């Protein structure tokens, strides 16, 4: 579409540029508020080609769309990717029983996001895809550009994992004795 241009207004004028700002390209070009595109904040009529005076036609609903209870009805337009599903979808449906000013709405959605992350891992495995978490986290670039920190992280993670494995195997080794002692 064509760009709806502002009425042509001269710049502040190079002659007015203070000497101390002469090295700054464009200094004061929009000093005049008339040159500022979002002034005043609410501007009517809108300078927009192609706008209609009536609301857009209603988009057909092909998937489940969760709707804010602060709205009387579905909006004419909405996004359709990733409709609610599974356990995370159930949590999201509960979240949408609360208004946006109710903290439970947002905390439930954040919780649902974490549940959804686990569901995503399950979906990958179901498709026979083992996610390459190292690659997904972009850690190759960490080794390339921040090698020392990357090595340090790997060493720390290895040590922590090693201690964990050691403690776990140790507890398993002693488990039968505990059972015996209980008897």
């Amino acid at each position, binding site marked *: *579409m*064509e*760009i709806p*241009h*502002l009425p042509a207004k001269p710049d502040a004028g190079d002659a007015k540029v203070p000497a101390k700002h002469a090295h*700054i*390209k*464009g200094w*004061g*070009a*929009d*000093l005049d508020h008339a040159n*500022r*595109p*979002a002034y005043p904040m*609410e*501007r*009517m009529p*809108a*300078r927009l080609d*192609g*706008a*209609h*005076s009536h*609301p*857009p*036609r209603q*988009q*057909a609903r*092909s998937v489940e*769309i*969760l*709707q*804010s209870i602060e709205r009387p009805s579905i*909006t*004419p*337009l*909405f*996004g*359709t*990717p*990733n409709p609610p599903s599974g356990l*995370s979808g159930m949590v999201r449906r509960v979240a949408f029983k609360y208004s*946006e000013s109710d903290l439970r709405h*947002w905390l439930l959605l*954040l919780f*649902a*996001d974490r549940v*959804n*992350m686990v569901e*995503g*891992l399950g979906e990958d495995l179901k498709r026979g895809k083992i996610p390459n*978490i190292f690659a*997904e986290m*972009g*850690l*190759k*670039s960490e080794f*390339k*550009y921040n090698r020392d920190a990357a090595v340090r992280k790997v060493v720390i993670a290895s040590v922590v994992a090693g201690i964990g494995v050691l403690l776990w195997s140790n507890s398993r080794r002693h488990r039968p004795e505990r059972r015996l002692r209980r008897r």
Partner: protein
Amino acid sequence: MLAMNYRGPYRVRAEQKSAPYIEHPGDAIVRVNRACICGSDLHLYHGLVPDTRIGTTFGHEFTGVVEEVGSSVQNLKVGDQVLVPFNIFCGSCFFCQRELYSNCHNVNAESSATGAIYGYSHTTGGYDGGQAEYVRVPMSDVGPTVIPADLDLDDAVLLTDAYPTGYQAAEMGDIREGETVVVFGAGPVGIFAAKSAWLLGAGRVIVVDHVEYRLEFVRNFAQCEVVNFKEVDDMALHIKKMTDWMGADVCIDAVGGEAAGNLAQSITGIKLKLQGGAATVLHWCINSVRKGGKVSIVGVYGPTFNAIPIGNAINKGLTLRMNQASVKRHLPRLIEHIQAGRIKPSEVITHRMPLEEVSDAYHMFSSKLDNCIKTVLVPPRASLSVAH
């Protein structure tokens, strides 16, 4: 088609998924040739934005070529090279009639407070974004703008969000001739806010950050003063000392909820999510600005609540202005600035990477590796030197 695919906090990958299709007569399908990673994408990447679903494709800064249009589209045709503002808007609602396109009321069923944004969680409408080969562009008669023939595509893609948001940040500061403007944050938006402050006639521009290479960049790009907050004990006190004990006339928050600089804010706002992000910069803005001064907020915060010194704001008689940028209303003037040679937005681009390397691109941007300031992703089949 190939698309970026969110798998959980800090995990993304490029993967094949179904291509979008016309779902409404006003839709267009755009074949993407440039898609930036925005600083606000990192809030999604870090898992901080509620209702960010697995499988979402991010990306609200993109340009491309119109591939298909819906039956009611009149202003676009197949083959048009377009830049697409990050806001999805109808052009006809109460808010659009007032040019508040970022606050459109007809495009996001899932929230009444938030407009719609491409690829930015279901809280902003649940639309997929442009870090993909193709993207659905709703209301294509009013949203996209055909890119003028003399405009570089790398400049055009920065007109979809970062540059207009930086400009609007300065504009909301209602800068008068000679005023002192402090911009918190030297990311792309802060960089453009600093440059725009000069265009609006500022007398002094100071940018605050803690990443040295970004401070160095903005010092050269926007010819401003810089402050590394890690070298300062008390930010508000430091600004007072720099401004003859008055405080700045205008303070701009170009950081948002993932700010460093205050441990208590970081723990409660980012780690424990007890706030809608760390309000460190809001604190600094309110306490560093002069009485009767203006605070402009474009940094992104979560939808819950934040601990800010509102009492100080009242006692100082401050004006606080904030909004997502209504990109469309800024485009004509900002294109003029580029064409007149007053600014070259594409200078902030430090990395151009194939979409296939999206995981590395996000990690590099998030961890500020290799002096990363702005990354452009290029989908397969889209050449870096697309002619138009």
